[in-house]
């Protein structure tokens, strides 16, 4: 039974999430009325901060489902009670990410065109199917978990969801991987890199939400579950760091890519700062320290590590998406170039307030959906009854 205080707190959370979402929608409306001229984007940096938020949420939406997969596909008992929460978070994050992506379009009101006109050569068009299919499959998966008559179908549904999200994140990585124009992208490595990044980011989001729910209910995670989830996050973070290192080392080996790598890793101002300070130090090394040193491991340390992984994710995506566009196109290799259109120049991008608000609005929408889902259905992991 829910107490009056719980009900009041629930409505407070809904009001908070709703307000943040509304502010995001307001920002999107302002962008639509005035055009993208009020953002920091221009004809060189065409995808800005909203894409950083959207791609974080979409990639994390895939990874957060790991918890459910490990439980119902691979039969790990500690993960099974967490499967429903993992499924709910997946849908919520996907909805938040897609909201930001759609509202950042130049013509968001034409979203029906995207749903009725497909160019099947486009990775974006594949993703329209992959994202909507993901919501449907996870919804069915949740249904099989909650409806006792269909419990037996939970494993096949879980396998379908597992395969689907691998394809989905391959699709997200391929949005960039198939771009031959820009030096930052055009790599087959980006698909597996995005999959491994999704593992870490998704688990980090899951741990943050789970910690909040446990604290809210004044409960504590069993120490062995905490240790297991913490170690797993550490492994994912290490694997991501490895693939990111391979991506940069490959580039450094190709002479034509050296200028771009020097820009991202050393000379590019905010980009090397965010890469080394944000992604490597705060987002990878520090969390691994917190997660792999047993005598440091506590609920607080795991939560701090998960939060740092999220911070690192944003730093990495900013470097990858914005840095990749800020570096000029090499239209005339071997030449110094200049023009009135910024050719040969690094583009300076500064995100504007509407971009921040739209991105945060997407997080608010994911939060709102999660809060309502947790309240309406029983998503609290039940360790005591396993």
């Amino acid at each position, binding site marked *: 039974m829910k107490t009056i205080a719980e009900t009041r707190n629930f409505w407070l959370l809904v009001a908070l999430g709703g307000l943040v979402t509304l502010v995001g929608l307001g920002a999107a409306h302002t962008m639509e009325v005035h055009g*993208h*001229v009020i953002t920091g984007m221009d004809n060189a940096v065409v995808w800005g901060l909203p894409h950083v938020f959207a791609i974080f949420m979409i990639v994390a939406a895939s990874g957060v489902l790991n918890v459910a997969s490990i439980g119902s596909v691979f039969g790990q008992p500690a993960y099974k009670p967490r499967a429903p929460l993992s499924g709910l978070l997946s849908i919520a994050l996907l909805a938040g990410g897609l909201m930001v992506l759609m509202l950042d*379009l130049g013509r968001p009101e034409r979203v029906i065109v995207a749903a009725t006109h497909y160019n099947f050569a486009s990775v974006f068009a594949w993703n329209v199917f992959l994202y909507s299919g993901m919501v449907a499959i996870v919804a069915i998966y949740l249904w099989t978990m909650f409806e006792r008559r269909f419990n037996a179908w939970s494993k096949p549904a879980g396998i379908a969801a597992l395969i689907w999200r691998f394809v989905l994140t391959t699709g997200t990585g391929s949005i960039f991987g198939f771009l031959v*124009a820009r030096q930052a992208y055009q790599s087959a490595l980006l698909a597996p890199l995005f999959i491994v990044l999704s593992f870490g980011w998704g688990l980090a989001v899951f741990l943050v939400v789970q910690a909040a729910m446990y604290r809210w209910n004044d409960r504590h995670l069993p120490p062995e579950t905490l240790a297991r989830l913490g170690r797993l996050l550490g492994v994912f973070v290490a694997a991501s760091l490895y693939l990111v290192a391979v991506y940069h080392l490959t580039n450094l080996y190709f002479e034509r890519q050296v200028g771009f790598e020097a820009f991202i890793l050393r000379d590019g101002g905010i980009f090397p700062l965010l890469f080394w300070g944000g992604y490597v130090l705060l987002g990878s090394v520090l969390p691994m320290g917190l997660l792999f040193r047993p005598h440091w491991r506590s609920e607080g340390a795991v939560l701090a590590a998960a939060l740092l992984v999220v911070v690192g994710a944003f730093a990495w995506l900013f470097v990858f998406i914005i840095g990749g566009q800020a570096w000029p*196109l090499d239209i005339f290799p071997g030449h110094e*170039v200049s023009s009135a259109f910024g050719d040969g120049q690094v583009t300076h991008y500064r995100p504007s307030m509407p971009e921040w608000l739209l991105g945060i609005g997407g997080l608010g929408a994911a939060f709102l959906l999660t809060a309502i889902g947790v309240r309406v259905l029983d998503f609290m992991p039940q360790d005591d009854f396993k």
Partner: protein
Amino acid sequence: MSGAPKTVDGGRRAWLGVAAAGLAGVMLAPGVRLIEIARAAPAAPAKTGGGANPAVRWGMLIDTTKCAPGCDDCVTACHTENGLGTPTRSTDARWIRKIDIKEVRTGRQASVPVMCQHCAEPPCVDVCPTGASFKRADGIVLVDRHSCIGCRYCMMACPYKARSFVHEPLTDQHPDVPRGKGCVESCTLCVHRLDRGEKITACAEACAKAGHSAIVFGDLNDPGSEIARRVREIQTTQLRADLKLDPGVRYHGI
């Protein structure tokens, strides 16, 4: 313990089932209806004048040895022709620009007009999710303003920075050149002129008028055309030829 909660539980589940089905219906119905409306609309406008000729491949030859540094008559003519205004900011549309290049090893300099290269294998067309970016039968790469959703993926995919996004509301549009806020656009090879039967683009015309004649426009597939003759006789280069996109714009002297 078992009786009463089971009934409640069963009732709650049934209610949830009905609610979920109702919600799904409410969410899907408008979509299904809109798809019906979209399908009911004619898939393509009725053809007038026979459409683009697939035997033609429109292209340009830019002779950088004739292009004068500091002259931007082609740029001005393009912007006037297409109603773009004078670009001053990085958010303003530029369908053509002059790039000054200097070879690092030799110090050799040139001034090069760059616009949409009208590739035979255009990456912008490949990546466009709705098919708004398309290549006409006569090789001109265009954007359908009615189905462009402004996702800007084509701008990410273009190796020439040839496309612009309309960042703010537009005024004083030319009737021949419809544009739209929130859509992507680029050089159309003055398709409105070609479809009227004219045989020269605004930039090539302005360049000839300025006495340089550095831009030759014509049908690459017509062996008797000046452009076909010139590209047969002199060495020409396609920008980023390594990508094998087969641009319809060729350069001499770089």
